[in-house]
């Protein structure tokens, strides 16, 4: 009977999570809940500097091992924060892109399709990168690079700018400080 209690609780929890997500989705489909458009800017040069393996190598040579591990952990935490902001921005752009997909302008829809595909890829890469960063926190001496996240973010920035220009020709849109 204990097993039945566990399964009933699991079923209730699963149903409440599913219904909450379904209600959110349903509200978005009906257009009564607009997407959160608070994109957070990223200093892409600082991000690049943070993930540069040469910087890590320099610190490894100059610092005693214990101090290097402390500094490396700090850098990994900062890296995780950057990746999470990139992940958040990708989520916002997916919503914006999906809204733009519904438009009648073929060029806007095409740019939106491209942007959503880039944002989805970034979100996938960022999720893996965050997991690997937290793993690297346990072994600060191990090699880790989030180059793919930065590259994908720059690509996404480009497609977002294209969509921004098509939607609003008077304004350019930047998602990072370096492009």
């Amino acid at each position: 009977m204990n097993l039945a209690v566990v399964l009933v609780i699991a079923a209730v929890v699963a149903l409440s999570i599913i219904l909450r997500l379904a209600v959110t989705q349903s509200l978005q489909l009906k257009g009564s809940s607009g997407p959160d458009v608070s994109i957070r800017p990223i200093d892409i040069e600082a991000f690049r500097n943070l993930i540069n393996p040469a910087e890590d190598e320099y610190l490894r040579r100059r610092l005693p091992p214990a101090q290097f591990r402390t500094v490396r952990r700090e850098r990994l935490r900062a890296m995780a924060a950057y990746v999470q902001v990139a992940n958040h921005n990708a989520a916002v752009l997916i919503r914006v892109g999906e809204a733009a997909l519904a438009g009648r302008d073929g060029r806007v829809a095409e740019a939106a399709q491209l942007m959503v595909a880039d944002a989805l890829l970034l979100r996938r890469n960022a999720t893996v990168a965050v997991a690997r960063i937290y793993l690297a926190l346990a072994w600060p001496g191990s090699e880790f690079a989030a180059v793919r996240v930065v590259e994908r973010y720059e690509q996404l920035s480009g497609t977002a700018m294209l969509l921004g220009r098509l939607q609003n020709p008077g304004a350019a849109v930047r998602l990072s400080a370096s492009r």
Partner: protein
Amino acid sequence: MLPAHSLLWHYFWLAPHILQVALAFLMWRRGLHSLFGVFFAYLIFEAFEEFTLYGLDIAPAVSGETFWRAFCVGLIVEGFIKIGVIGELFYHLLRPWPAIAKVGSRLVTGTGAVLVLLASLAAALVVPDNNHWLISGSHILQQTFYIVDCGLLALLFSFTAYFKLAWNYRILGIAVGLAILACEHLGTWAVMANGGLLGQRHFLDLLNMATYHVCVLIWFYYLLVPQKTPTTSAVSLPENNLAIWNRELERLLQQ
């Protein structure tokens, strides 16, 4: 043979499946059967299965063993078709986005394998609630299938929420109906398989049938009632963030 039941019992056994046949017919008329082929097959099979079981239940010549054998066969076929319906929902959601289709299909396969293992473990831990292996076995089989269904549907909703994928109105309706059905049925079949509420089984049966009725009405609504056009227009990228981005650019140039 099951004992005779109330009028409500007969209504709940037959009405949802009559509605299912009507829904399948309307889907066919509107061409939706080619879009949701597995779900269409599920509606037809489920109605056929339940009408057969109802006939076996009320026919005096049919033995209890024959009824439970038919119940078990129907349950296995229905279980696999339902997993196919969940696969069809994943296919519709991921098809426009090849970027995450591969990771999505790997996740579904991996989660499915873990769920089958968990469901097998749960089945092994069950103390049979009935001396007849066919009855207790079918209860355990129900519990097993619903553990897998529930887990896969939770994954479907979590995956789309995480990647912020937009649901098609009809796909959302099918998924919500299936999710309510799977979660409620998991609860009741888990109680039955583990020997709970022995004296009140008819309430659990009634709850299952009433839930099924609600789910069929949900499918009716989402598949046949036209979707309202969203009132908001396409959202542009925010212009107010430009100032922040440009400020950062200036700061970078001054370094």
